């Protein structure tokens, strides 16, 4: 994994994250290439979400370096950081929609803050985003508490895409969705990636997502990336956890 990749949109080098005495990430290296969908897997509690949150700057790291769009986030000035933040979108595990704003206001929020455009354009773009994530414009004036779990994920994705980012972080986007809904969501991510030219960093547990949506897979274990590559590479790996994960009972059901 350590080889230099000039096309990397995210470059993580020797990241160490520690909570108290527990070392969650231990000298981790990872590259995410421009335009790919990277599936990020690992056992529960291995620190997948921690890595995501470390990259986006919500969890402090003890050591290491993170570059996003070629900007070293530790060395970046506040305005450089802002510029990077405008170019990425994040879908949190629980959606993290603003509960006191309607769907319309949630999706318009980033654009309203960052761009001086008319209300008309904001409304039109909001509808475009809703259509893109497969929702009807009629949900625009509902509050998050009036939405179903799947709709919350879609609205949250629409908000993550509000400023047309180049990079999207998805934290377990299909968890809590029914298989059909999850399948549609994978399809959606694929379509959006193609239409908008996105790079997607997707934390997931869903084998279907890995098969249908992801270009490349990285596996986290013991605070390090234990493997990265295509599905075929994963299945060929001799690592016991990978063997179990990709060749276990549930995995066979997916392939069949």
């Amino acid at each position, binding site marked *: 994994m350590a080889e230099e990749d000039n096309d990397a949109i995210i470059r993580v080098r020797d990241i160490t994250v520690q909570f108290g005495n527990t070392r969650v990430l231990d000298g981790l290296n990872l590259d995410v290439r421009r335009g790919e969908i990277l599936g990020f897997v690992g056992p529960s509690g291995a620190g997948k979400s921690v890595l995501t949150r470390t990259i986006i700057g919500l969890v402090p790291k003890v050591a290491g370096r993170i570059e996003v769009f070629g900007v070293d986030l530790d060395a970046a000035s506040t305005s450089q950081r802002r510029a990077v933040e405008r170019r990425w979108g994040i879908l949190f595990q629980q959606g993290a929609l603003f*509960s*006191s704003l309607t769907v319309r206001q949630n999706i318009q929020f980033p654009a309203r803050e960052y761009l001086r455009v008319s209300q008309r*354009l904001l409304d*039109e773009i909001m509808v*475009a985003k809703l*259509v893109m994530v497969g929702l009807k414009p009629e949900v*625009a004036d509902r509050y998050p*508490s009036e939405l179903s779990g799947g709709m919350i994920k879609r609205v949250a994705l629409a908000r993550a*895409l509000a400023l047309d980012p180049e990079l999207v972080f998805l934290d377990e986007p299909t968890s809590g969705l029914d298989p059909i809904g999850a399948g549609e969501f994978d399809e959606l991510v694929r379509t959006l990636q193609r*239409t908008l030219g996105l790079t997607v960093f997707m934390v997931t547990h869903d084998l279907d997502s890995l098969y249908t949506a992801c270009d490349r897979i990285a596996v986290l274990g013991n605070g390090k990336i234990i493997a990265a590559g295509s599905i075929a590479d994963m299945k060929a790996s001799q690592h016991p956890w990978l063997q179990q994960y990709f060749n276990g009972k549930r995995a066979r059901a997916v392939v069949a």
Partner: protein
Amino acid sequence: MCAAGNWTARFAPALERIVSDAEKLRGSRPHIFIDVSQVASLDTFGAWLIERLRRSLSDASAEAEIAGLSANYSSLVDEVRRVGPAPRVVSDPLSISGMLEQIGRTVAGIGGTIIGLVDMLGAVLVAAGKVLIHPRSFRLTSTVHHLEQVCWRAVPIVVLITFLIGCIISQQGIFHFRRFGADIFVVDMLGVLVLREIGVLLVAIMVAGRSGSAYTAELGSMKMREEIDALRTMGFDPIEVLILPRMLALVLALPILAFLGAMAALYGGGLVAWLYGGVDPEAFLLRLRDAISIDHFIVGMVKAPVMAAVIGIVACVEGLAVQGSAESLGQHTTASVVKGIFFVIVMDGVFAIFFASIGM
């Protein structure tokens, strides 16, 4: 016409102006092509603005067309072509009937509040009755935990504030009574005022602000995250598990805090009377013993648990009324404190009439 350059979100404000200028060409020519072959980059904002232009240049006779679209962007343009008009924001127009309706709803809301409080009081009493029949179901640990939160941890701030209030009453009393040479009567005033009214009222208001709001916020966020529903489905009564221990803790805590507060206020008053008014402690105590009777103390203490129950019930009703949003949690926490303090003062008035009529 020809579009060129970056059509992305960053440049959206400028692009929007360009597009609305270009829209004025509508109808000037029979057939219009929008040439986008010079566009360097395109995202949803740009694609939509081009689509908007295309739509407004089209009319019944001729449809404007987009030409020179690169293959990378064609799916994006197809995507925005599906976009329909945005739904209008529904806002209630300001009108006389609307305002009257609002007033009506508010008045009906007051009735609803009172029914809600009585309902909660009944539910808590039923839960208390059940616990009396089955003492094993009583949640001692929880009660002790809440007692620590609302009583033990509140002692420093309650004692400090009542001490200062005692000082102020005493200083003001001496300052004004001195003109009539009635310095010593400040002891009567301090004793009666602190034991009957200020001690318990002030402490109840502090508790409503400190613990009532905490109860509402706790129960409200549990409601928001469906924890209360989870509890109910497991066969537990939220009133018994969550509310009864909180109520009991508050009912036990307020008399204790009121007593400590009254003592602190008397102490502060006595100290000021001595240092500022020259009433030495011995004279102060002697006068205090004459001025007040046990009745004053009882009047104060009897009010405390009732006020605690009112604060607790208001806080729990508001907590359970929280809806799914953070804003709603804030509104109900505010309402909990405001209503709690209001009802405490109303209760104090009712008690004043009651004790006057029985001659205490």
